[in-house]
């Protein structure tokens, strides 16, 4: 299991390649990757920047718990999860969930499950700065979007 928080931009594909160098790829027929980027729009408004607040300690523990529970449900998987914290600009990657498995269904389903649980359980909070300089907290993640 690998769970990482970054307070600076990270390249999700570099993390995937770096992890793959350490994995027995001849046994892992499937890799499912979700990379989420910051948009420059939300709810019909233009967004200039974002701040991602987190709960140091609990955030890492929650991500580790979510991955551990996925590993218990799909015992064959290997996971890499990364998330930004702090100031983020549009087009930068916010989240990476990569799951390797022998077969496609476990990789795909575990990747989706980890992402949805992360969005609803891990303590992160987005604060958006609009192009007119005003700021607002994002109130909630939309289920399943």
């Amino acid at each position: 299991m690998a769970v990482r928080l970054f307070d600076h931009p990270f390249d999700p594909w570099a993390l995937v390649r770096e992890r793959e160098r350490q994995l027995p790829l001849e046994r892992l027929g499937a890799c499912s990757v979700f990379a989420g980027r910051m948009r420059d729009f939300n709810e019909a408004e233009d967004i200039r920047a974002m701040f991602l607040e987190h709960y140091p300690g609990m955030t890492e523990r929650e991500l580790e718990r979510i991955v551990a529970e996925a590993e218990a449900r799909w015992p064959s998987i290997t996971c890499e999860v990364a998330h930004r914290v702090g100031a983020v600009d549009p087009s930068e990657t916010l989240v990476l969930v990569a799951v390797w498995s022998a077969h496609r269904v476990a990789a795909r389903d575990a990747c989706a499950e980890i992402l949805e649980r992360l969005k609803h359980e891990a303590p992160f909070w987005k604060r958006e700065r609009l192009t007119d300089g005003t700021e607002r907290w994002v109130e909630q993640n939309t289920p399943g979007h």
Partner: protein
Amino acid sequence: MTITVQYFARLREDLGRERDEVAATGELQTVGDLWRHLHGDPPARLMAAVNQAHARLDTPVADGDEVAFFPPVTGG
């Protein structure tokens, strides 16, 4: 001995502070007791944690615990 209470995101801004220290007493049995003692009726969709694990309003609290209150999470 005390219970440490932390606030995050919009809740911290609305309350105007990051934390409270509360003397542990026999009346403060649960997370909900703690919120009511400090702030009255809990708002809808209030989330909580005890010692950095998700909790509910009926989760017990004890001397020395780290309790946190926060709005719905919006990561990912």
